């Protein structure tokens, strides 16, 4: 049979012959046919993962360029490059080579800035992508494991960012490392040993830059690439989710095939992202390492912050008091082998908030699955308003994060808004606890209100702004019915009712089941049911919408 194929098909063009030659040897066409026909739904909010991927590609390209010239040695040298305010200053080779990249290598500063801006955008797009997935419920079955892979990618991107931030060995990055050193040392008993192991002796030592460099250019990018491969493989296996709409259900995907439209669009989008990053790098300074000077453990500059994605942990450290109601949070505990220090004022803020955020993040798909007992596959997304409790939980978590994030810039908030730094800290401490609660309540009410508005529009039409006076003097506003496509979006969603306790096979209701039922009530007690066909029928036939109805009839008659 294969001989028959070879003999019958003769490509007409040169390109055709080359591709035919390759295809007969590697068999690419079935793969291409399969992938090219893969359908993806179209929505702007689906493109953040793409942005993350593209900024990662930019990071690999510019990062490779930077490795040609960067030397991660912490040996001491005297700067002899062309930046005058640092001439003759003693510094590490790592810092000196970073300065050379910035001032003495053609295009080096631009590449450094592309790399750094791209890193900020990479983590930002990863974060927004994750928020989109959470708020639309895209993590539900069958995508729970892909959510976990995504969460791992978040942590890896933070690690990639932080190790990169520390490499230039300038004052700013050294201060960041000092904080990490402090956090590591606050781990009870073994902290000092881990710190000495990490830094190869007492901080700062002469090993850390080289070690971080290996992690930054080798291990972390390799794991990120592996995770991206798994992530995308699962996207192909699960198919892409879609927003609710007419003709869309959990059994289909409505959109365009990958080839040719999407391949072209995605390829073009890569260059758009590259262009935006290049423009930023060309016109705006990022991390002006020459301002900070070489690292030296004694000076700490005002306005020392980590890059934005580590900011929330820095903010938690800033918010934590050293004393609470007259009790110190740093204890010296006598143990058989000597006195150990327990620095809760560092340990708690450094580990607990991040621990809470990532635990809830990874566990959330299973938490919701357990509460709702929903074991169906979901390929149609929820509009955030149609899952009020999930949206409220998400906003509470988001607020929790943002309060800590804001705390990392407390000093700049104080100087730029002319308020007291102490007051900023006190307010943020209060918001750390109250903020998520307020956000939960407000979001849930807003979501329910939007659902009610949707229901109202579905039943009674939209307000046209036309006021009509009836013969007996009454004024009414004319409502126009929305078309069927729009109405589908307003009524086509699920609104589960609380699921009461279910007896198990022994005929008992366990404590866990009671808790589940209670949480289910929290989730679904406040609900706005979508308008049913019967309700729609009744409403549209109702007499008090005569004018609207007659308007509609006219429209139909046209």
């Amino acid at each position, binding site marked *: 049979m294969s001989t028959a194929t070879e003999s019958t098909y003769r490509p007409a063009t040169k390109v055709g012959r080359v591709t035919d030659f390759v295809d007969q040897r590697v068999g690419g066409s079935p793969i291409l046919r399969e992938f090219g026909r893969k359908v993806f739904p179209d929505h702007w909010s689906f493109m953040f993962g793409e942005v993350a991927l593209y900024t990662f590609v930019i990071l690999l390209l510019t990062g490779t360029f930077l490795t040609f010239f960067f030397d991660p040695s912490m040996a001491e040298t005297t700067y002899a490059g062309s930046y005058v*305010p640092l001439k003759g200053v003693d510094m590490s080779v790592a810092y000196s080579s970073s300065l050379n990249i910035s001032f003495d290598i053609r295009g080096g500063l631009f590449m450094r800035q592309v790399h750094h801006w791209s890193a900020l955008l990479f983590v930002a797009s990863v974060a927004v992508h994750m928020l989109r997935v959470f708020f639309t419920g895209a993590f539900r079955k069958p995508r729970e494991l892909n959510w976990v892979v995504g969460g791992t990618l978040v942590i890896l991107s933070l690690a990639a960012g932080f190790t990169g931030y520390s490499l230039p060995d300038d004052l700013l990055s050294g201060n960041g490392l000092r904080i990490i050193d402090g956090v590591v040392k606050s781990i009870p008993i073994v902290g000092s040993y881990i710190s000495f192991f990490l830094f190869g002796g007492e901080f700062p030592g002469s090993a850390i830059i080289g070690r971080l460099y290996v992690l930054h250019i080798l291990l972390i990018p390799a794991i990120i690439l592996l995770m991206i491969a798994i992530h995308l493989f699962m996207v192909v296996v699960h198919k892409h989710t879609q927003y609710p709409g007419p003709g869309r259900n959990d059994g289909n995907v409505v959109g365009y095939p990958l080839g040719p439209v999407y391949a072209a669009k995605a390829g073009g989008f890569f260059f758009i992202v590259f262009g935006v990053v290049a423009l930023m790098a060309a016109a705006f300074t990022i991390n002006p390492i*020459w301002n900070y000077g070489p690292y030296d453990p004694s000076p700490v500059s005002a306005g020392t912050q980590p890059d934005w994605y580590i900011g929330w942990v820095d903010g938690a450290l800033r918010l934590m008091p050293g004393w609470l109601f007259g009790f110190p949070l740093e204890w010296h505990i006598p143990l058989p082998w000597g006195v150990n220090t327990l620095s809760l004022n560092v340990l708690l803020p450094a580990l607990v908030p991040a621990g809470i955020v990532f635990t809830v993040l990874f566990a959330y798909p299973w938490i919701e699955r357990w509460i709702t007992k929903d074991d169906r596959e979901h390929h149609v997304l929820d509009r955030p308003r149609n899952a009020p409790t999930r949206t409220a939980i998400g906003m509470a978590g988001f607020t929790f994060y943002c309060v800590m994030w804001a705390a990392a810039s*407390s000093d700049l908030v104080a100087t730029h808004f002319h308020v007291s730094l102490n007051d900023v800290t006190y307010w943020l401490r209060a918001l750390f606890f109250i903020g998520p609660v307020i956000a939960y309540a407000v979001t849930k009410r807003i979501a329910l209100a939007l659902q009610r508005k949707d229901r109202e529009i579905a039943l009674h039409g939209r307000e046209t702004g036309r006021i009509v006076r009836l013969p007996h003097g009454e004024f009414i506003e004319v409502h126009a019915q929305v078309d069927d496509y729009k109405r589908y979006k307003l009524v086509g969603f699920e609104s589960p009712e609380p699921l009461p306790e279910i007896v198990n096979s022994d005929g008992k209701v366990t404590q866990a089941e009671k808790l589940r039922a209670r949480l289910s009530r929290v989730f679904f007690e406040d609900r706005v049911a979508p308008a049913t066909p019967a309700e729609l029928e009744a409403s549209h036939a109702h007499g008090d919408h005569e004018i609207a109805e007659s308007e509609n009839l006219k429209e139909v008659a046209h």
Partner: protein
Amino acid sequence: MKALSQKRRHPLAAVALLLLGLILTGGLYAAATAPTAKADTTTYTAADTEEGSKLFIANCATCHGMGAVGSPSGPSLVGVGAASVDFQVGTGRMPMENQGPQAEQKPAQFNEEQTKQLAAYVASLAPGPAVPAEEYTDGGGNAAEGGELFRVNCAMCHNAAAAGGALTRGKYAPALAGVSNEHIYEAMVTGPQNMPVFNDANITPEGKRDIITFLNTIENNGSPGGADLGALGPVSEGLFAWVAGLGVIIAFTIWLTSRTS
């Protein structure tokens, strides 16, 4: 010499030696701690002091008291020196607009002549740091050494790029761009507002000159990497990446998907 060696057993020899030692150390100390006096090159006439006194009574005495001895609303100015007056009045911080965490910079209320007269009056009350000599404020020192001194002594409040920073309870260290060299020098010797005094034993006049040179250099250098976003570090960079960077990219994603539903 012989006379000296013969008298070495004299009962008062020990006393004489002690006296000699005290004079020597005291004299050296005085010489080492009084270099501010040598920076005093400006001379004030009696008329200056007289005019300054009148200006002081009319504009400053409400808070600082008659004879500048201080009151509950303002500190004593006896001994603060001409440098302090030149800085506070010259940068518009004094007379103070309103009571607050610290005096704000504003357009100067007195002209150079009047500022000089006020300085003359305050300097006449007691000796203090004088207006610096030209040789220390010409910006002709070593920028690299100035940078090191700046990072060790100044950057923790003023920021490594001299962009300013927050202090406690609404106080702050201002940005240093646009501040005249004389005022920078005077601030270091007099320690205005919440700033500590960096006397000449702490940072030598040459060191201060280097710091001024460093500040002039980074101000004139501009920002090699493009717009500096306020030189505020990662916060403004992060804000820019989120708002401008991601904002533009979102605009593109909406454009790319706008043709279809």
